[in-house]
């Protein structure tokens, strides 16, 4: 058991390292592994690297922030997905399916539409994300007598449709020359515009969301048994539930307000993490976060290198995520039953 976990830790760390190395090396301007090592060494020791300043600038100023953003956002989305799945006792939910991403998108589009500063955009994304998840859970709890697993997913689809309509309305109202292209491309999901300024506001939000999840890691396990049992074992379920929803929504909103809707990560990554380390949230959370970081970075590297134009992230994660999820669904229904 511990040997297995050590093995998993090694593999996830290796996947992350490979993803980071590749992301730095490949692109329109390839950087040789030797140069990368020299730059890393010079930063560590403070000595000059001997690599041309252009290459150094590409590594630090161009790729660095984008790689940082991909890592942080991938970790945030996967961690939020793991939290929502445990909380709702439902391996089919994720920030996108619960309407959190859609709500955050409405908030963020509204912020862009009103030309608000990034902090306000994030605040709106967070507020609308919370409203969306509240709506979905309200609808799901009002519809009784059906399979709660499916009702929750259906409620998410319904609310998602409504939110999509809101976004469409805002797009129609937006200035077609400046705002509309920005909104459209941003909605598809992209890290191309991830500036260090955005990161400076998103990283603290992601960290603030992550800490409560980590602190409550044991109690989240009990929530996944159902409210009555958790309460009988001494958990104040309402408080823990609210804290987990707020934290996971904050992380999702921070990610959405930077990169638009990047779907599937919150759904697929926690599945694979659960297969690797089991459902204990204390292990599931960090492994999901690391795998999510590595996955989004790999996808983003693909997005900026495979074609002449940049492929939107949401498109790629859907192409990769849908088959992976279907394969999961068919193969291992028993892993959650």
């Amino acid at each position, binding site marked *: 058991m511990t040997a297995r976990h050590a093995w998993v830790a090694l593999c996830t760390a290796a996947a992350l390292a490979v993803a980071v190395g590749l992301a730095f090396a490949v692109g329109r301007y390839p950087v040789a592994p030797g140069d990368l090592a020299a730059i890393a060494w010079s930063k560590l020791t403070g000595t000059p690297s001997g690599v041309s300043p252009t290459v150094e600038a590409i590594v630090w100023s161009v790729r660095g922030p984008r790689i940082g953003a991909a890592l942080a956002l991938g970790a945030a989305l996967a961690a939020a997905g793991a939290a929502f799945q445990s909380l709702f*006792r439902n391996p089919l939910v994720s920030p996108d399916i619960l309407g959190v991403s859609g709500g955050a998108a409405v908030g963020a589009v509204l912020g862009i539409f009103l030309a608000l500063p990034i902090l306000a955009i994030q605040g709106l994304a967070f507020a609308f994300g919370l409203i969306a998840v509240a709506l979905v859970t309200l609808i799901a709890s009002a519809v009784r007598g059906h399979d709660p697993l499916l009702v929750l997913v259906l409620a998410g689809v319904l609310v998602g449709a409504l939110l999509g309509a809101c976004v469409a309305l805002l797009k129609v109202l937006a200035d077609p020359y400046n705002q509309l292209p920005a909104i459209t491309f941003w909605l598809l999901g992209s890290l191309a515009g991830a500036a260090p300024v955005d990161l400076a506001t998103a990283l603290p939000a992601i960290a603030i969301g992550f800490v409560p999840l980590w602190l*409550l890691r044991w109690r989240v396990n009990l929530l996944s*048994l159902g409210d009555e049992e958790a309460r*009988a074992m*001494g958990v104040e379920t309402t408080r823990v539930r609210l804290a987990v929803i707020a934290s996971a929504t904050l992380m999702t909103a921070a990610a959405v307000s930077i990169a638009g809707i990047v779907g599937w990560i919150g759904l697929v990554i926690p599945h694979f993490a659960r297969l690797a380390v089991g459902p204990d949230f204390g292990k599931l959370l960090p492994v999901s976060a690391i795998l999510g970081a590595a996955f989004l970075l790999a996808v983003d590297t693909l997005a900026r290198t495979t074609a002449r134009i940049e492929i939107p992230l949401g498109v790629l994660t859907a192409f990769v995520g849908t088959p992976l999820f279907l394969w999961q669904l068919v193969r291992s229904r028993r892993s959650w039953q």
Partner: protein
Amino acid sequence: MSAPVASLEGVALDFGYPGHAVGRGVSIALRAGEIVCLLGPNGGGKSTLFRTLLGLLPAQGGDVRLDGDPLATLSRAAIAKRVSYVPQAHAGYFPFTMRDVVLMGRTAHLSPFAAPTRRDVAIAEACLARLGLAALADQVYTRVSGGERQLALIARALAQEAPLVVMDEPTASLDFGNQARVLDEVRALAASGIGVIMATHDPDQAFLCADRVALLHAGRLIADAPPREAITPATLREVYGIDADVIDVTLASGETRRVCVPRSGVRFAT
């Protein structure tokens, strides 16, 4: 330990769901070291009464007192340290190991942001061993048999180290052997000083292990007495609507045990 003897009391309880009263005026008590069997027909309100006693469902009237303290004044953790709950074994949702499931019983003893320590793991493993599940510690809860799940939930209640345990039909859907095993464990718990109140459908189980029997019928308690006084052909007829013989049998060991045997050709009472 604040009180010398732990106790859970429902006083003149009205219980049920909003807009739907299930029971009225039920007074019932459980003290450490005794076994109380709650008998009653399907849909008679046994589970609802238990939820109310555990504070999972607010009482619609009357009081629930835990060691004399009104339940409403206690935190969930304070309640969980004094009374644990064994629900009917369910399939579970995520593939936790048996060890993790039992470890969850330690939660009331952890501060809100803490995870279980080595000591908690040791307690959980001791509880698994006590119920004969040591070899299954690394097995996945969702994949073991129903009987093993039910035993794991009892082990989880043990790990909670509460002096009182509420068990909702712990033998429901178990085979003959596992029923006997669970009842043995219930008796062992009581012998070690723990008070157990359990719902059951089988009056023979009450004769086997109960100190007192509470008969719940149509939302009211119609008996609360030692088994031989509470379970008679008359009360069985009143509660279940059938004729049954209540007889003493002599076992191979020489011990005498009372059992209930429904008459053949039983029809639904009109």
